[in-house]
């Protein structure tokens, strides 16, 4: 028995935690806890785990309160605990209560059906006070409508009491606001333009949104820095820039965000080019957030069919109307001309009035009613002119016209108002003197185009001109140089002609010619002259007129080998003896001496080429 009791107790101890884990927890809250008559409060019950919750019903609210709406929505959370994945589903039942009478009321309980079982929540107390009793809440300049406080009241305080704060109630998602990914976690800014290409003066609508993760606590918005739009004329499309307008809910990177519109501007580009819109910056309490830098490619409207008088920047769709009163005045009296320019787009701030002789236009009084209509800027500008006729008779006041580029029609348009004629009677005002007017001595206009100089050809555009400019001097320089060069060449040629080597060549040629003949004396004579030239050319020694042994010694002193010197001396002696022999010499002997003479000269040349020092 004791053992059985012990086993039962042990079993109970094992099962209790499991049962405790399986039992749903219910949390009840009402926000705000105190409201004024006519205001609403939210009574909510969160059940976790709530995957089996199918119904939620609140006990009939007491008299003085009315139920204005209710919802039941689940949310999911995946947690990792010791490496194990687990999913928790929380069901949230929300009841919107409106107070119609003062008093302290008890709300609930709420009955929840989970997996067929009925669970009952705790009650909550709501205090309702008279209208105007509660202190006025100081509006946040960036959150005057308490949008983020609503988040806090609706979700934040309750969710904090649950295992996590990432519960995501179901919201109607606006796909147009959804983004692929969030640039920052939690809260971020996002800027968008309705077009990235425009013409100068065309409206570009810029929207700046703030995205806040619905499961995160309220961002503390502070220190806003406006978007930079120095290249644009900027007009706000919302009535109050300090207000935040809730735009809806969006899915961003798989999470749900509440989206509010911070700014909405009509931007009118002031000039052509790639114009940048600098980001808006905002401190959210956890750091600074900034929107994207955007670029708009801006061009001028087309030149084709552009009307005369069109001013770049006049874009939209304009209408003009005018009335003139009175139509009959005295000279110098005032005529009122009221012109209304209306339409969409950036309306011109001034009009070009028709200047006519005898009519003076005074500066207009301008009143405007410009506003946004369905995000399109436009309205009416009224120009009130005073016109003074200075000439009598019927005066045609002419037309007032404004040309504009219509981006929707892709065409130019002209808004025109015809002012008509006024009749001017004689008046007391003095007639203005024509000569007193400024610039009265201007020449007459020209009636035909075409008195324009064509682009002239210029001499100095050509490099040939600069070459020609230097040519005479260059020619002179060339002539001087040429003459100097020719002199040097001639000098060298002359030197070459009179050199021992040149003479030796001549002598050897003469020797060849003599050998070819049959005069033995002539051959010997030519041999003597060749040998003398050879000694002069190769040994630098003049042996002419030097006799006998002296020849050999002179050559030896000049570095010629004794053997060659002896041979040369012997040959000279032999040739001289044969040449002057009374009996004459044999032709064959003379030719033999000539041959030997040539050999000696070659020896001298060989020695000279090898270098005399070695021979020495």
């Amino acid at each position, binding site marked *: 028995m004791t053992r059985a009791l012990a086993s039962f107790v042990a079993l109970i101890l094992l099962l209790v935690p499991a049962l405790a884990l399986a039992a749903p927890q219910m949390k009840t809250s009402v926000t705000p806890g105190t409201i004024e008559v006519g205001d609403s409060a939210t009574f909510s019950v969160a059940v976790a785990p709530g995957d089996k919750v199918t119904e939620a019903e609140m006990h009939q609210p007491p008299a003085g309160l009315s139920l204005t709406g209710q919802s039941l929505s689940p949310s999911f959370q995946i947690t990792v605990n010791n490496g194990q994945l687990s999913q928790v589903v929380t069901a949230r039942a929300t009841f919107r209560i409106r107070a119609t009478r003062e008093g302290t009321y008890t709300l609930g309980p709420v009955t929840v059906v989970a997996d067929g079982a009925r669970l009952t929540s705790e009650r909550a107390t709501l205090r309702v006070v008279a209208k105007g009793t509660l202190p006025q809440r100081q509006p946040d300049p960036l959150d005057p409508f308490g949008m983020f406080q609503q988040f806090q009241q609706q979700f934040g305080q309750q969710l904090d009491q649950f295992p996590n704060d990432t519960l995501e109630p179901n919201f109607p998602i606006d796909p147009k606001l959804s983004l692929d990914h969030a640039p920052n976690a939690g809260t971020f800014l996002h800027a968008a333009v309705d077009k990235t290409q425009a013409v100068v003066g065309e409206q570009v609508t810029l929207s700046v949104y703030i995205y806040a993760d619905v499961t995160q606590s309220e961002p503390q918005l502070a220190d806003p820095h406006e978007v930079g739009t120095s290249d644009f004329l900027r007009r706000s499309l919302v009535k109050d820039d300090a207000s935040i307008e809730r735009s809806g809910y969006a899915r961003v990177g798989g999470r749900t965000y509440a989206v509010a519109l911070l700014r909405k501007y009509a931007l009118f580009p002031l000039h052509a080019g790639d114009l940048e819109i600098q980001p808006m910056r905002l401190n959210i309490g956890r750091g600074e957030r900034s929107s994207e830098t955007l670029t708009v490619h801006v061009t001028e409207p087309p030149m084709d069919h552009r009307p*005369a008088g069109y001013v770049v920047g006049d874009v939209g769709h304009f209408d003009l109307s005018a009335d003139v009163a009175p139509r009959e005045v005295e000279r110098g009296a005032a005529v009122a001309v009221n012109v209304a320019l209306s339409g969409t787009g950036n309306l011109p701030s001034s009009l070009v009035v028709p200047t*006519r002789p005898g009519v003076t236009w005074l500066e207009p009084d301008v009143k405007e009613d410009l506003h946004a209509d369905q995000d399109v800027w436009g309205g009416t500008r009224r120009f009130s002119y005073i016109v003074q006729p200075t000439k009598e008779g019927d005066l045609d006041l002419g037309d007032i016209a404004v040309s504009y580029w219509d981006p929707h029609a892709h065409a130019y348009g002209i808004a025109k108002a015809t002012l008509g004629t006024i009749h001017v009677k004689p008046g007391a005002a003095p007639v203005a003197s024509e000569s007193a007017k400024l610039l009265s001595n201007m020449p007459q206009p020209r009636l*035909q185009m075409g008195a*324009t100089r064509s682009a002239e050809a210029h001499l100095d555009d050509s490099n040939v001109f600069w070459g020609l400019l230097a040519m005479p001097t260059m020619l*002179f320089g060339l002539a001087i140089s040429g003459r100097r060069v020719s002199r040097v060449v001639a000098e060298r040629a002359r030197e070459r002609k009179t050199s021992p080597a040149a003479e030796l060549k001549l002598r050897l040629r003469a020797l060849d010619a003599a050998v070819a003949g049959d005069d033995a004396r002539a051959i010997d004579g030519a041999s003597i002259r060749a040998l003398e030239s050879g000694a002069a050319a190769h040994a630098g020694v003049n042996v002419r007129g030097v006799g006998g042994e002296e020849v050999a010694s002179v050559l030896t002193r000049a570095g010629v080998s004794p053997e060659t010197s002896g041979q040369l001396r012997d040959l000279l002696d032999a040739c001289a003896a044969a040449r002057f022999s009374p009996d004459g010499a044999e032709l064959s002997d003379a030719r033999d001496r000539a041959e030997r003479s040539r050999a000696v000269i070659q020896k001298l040349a060989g020695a000279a080429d090898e270098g005399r020092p070695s021979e020495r």
Partner: protein
Amino acid sequence: MLVVSLLALPAFGAEEPSETKKLFDDGVHALQQERPNEAIASFEALADRGVVDATASYDRGLAYALRVHMNAEQPGDLGRAAHGFEEARELSNDSRLASDAESALASIRSEVARRKAREGVTVDMEQRASPWRTLSQLLGENAWAAVAVGFSILLGAGLFARWLAEASRARAGAAIAIAVSAPMLVVAAALARTARHDRLYLREAVVVSPSVRPSDSHGIALPQAPVLPEAARVEVVDQNGGWTEVRWGGLHGWVPAATLRTIDKP
């Protein structure tokens, strides 16, 4: 399709001149009818289309002057009138047109000077260019180039004569020719070069705002610097964003680009 395109080509080509002529005729007609605003609109439309014509510029100047004359002056009208006349002078091959433009310009500038004098400011509207530039503009680029060629030939002849001649008188004459022609060649060539540089790179504009105070490159107004008067012709040195660096006589500074209008050249 191809045939239609080919047939359309001559018509398209013919559209542009007729539109230009119509704008010019409308402008002249308005000018004759003493309707300066319509005339200005037509002549400015011509300028927007890139039409460079001395007569159109001249008549545009007259249209602005007429608006001043008719007591309907807008700020900058005198400057724009002066711009039209300056451009006409620059572009015109008709000496009478250039002369009329010059006399109209003188009237405009004397009116500006008169207004300045009424404010207690004395201005010299005609700021002279540097003596060197004035000299280069005196004969023009081609004339200076021809003079340079002449002196080059004379120099070459002198050099040859001095080299080849044996008679002492001839050699002395050649030496004189060399001494004169060598420096004159350098001067004439440099003047031709300056004139060419001005033609290719010098950009000028007219002040089309009642008064412009020059600043330094950081946008800070130059102390003691005189105000640039309307209708003054200035030299454009550089441009940066919405600012233009200008030189006017001895004055050198930056002014908003919108206060100037550039003069077209042939």
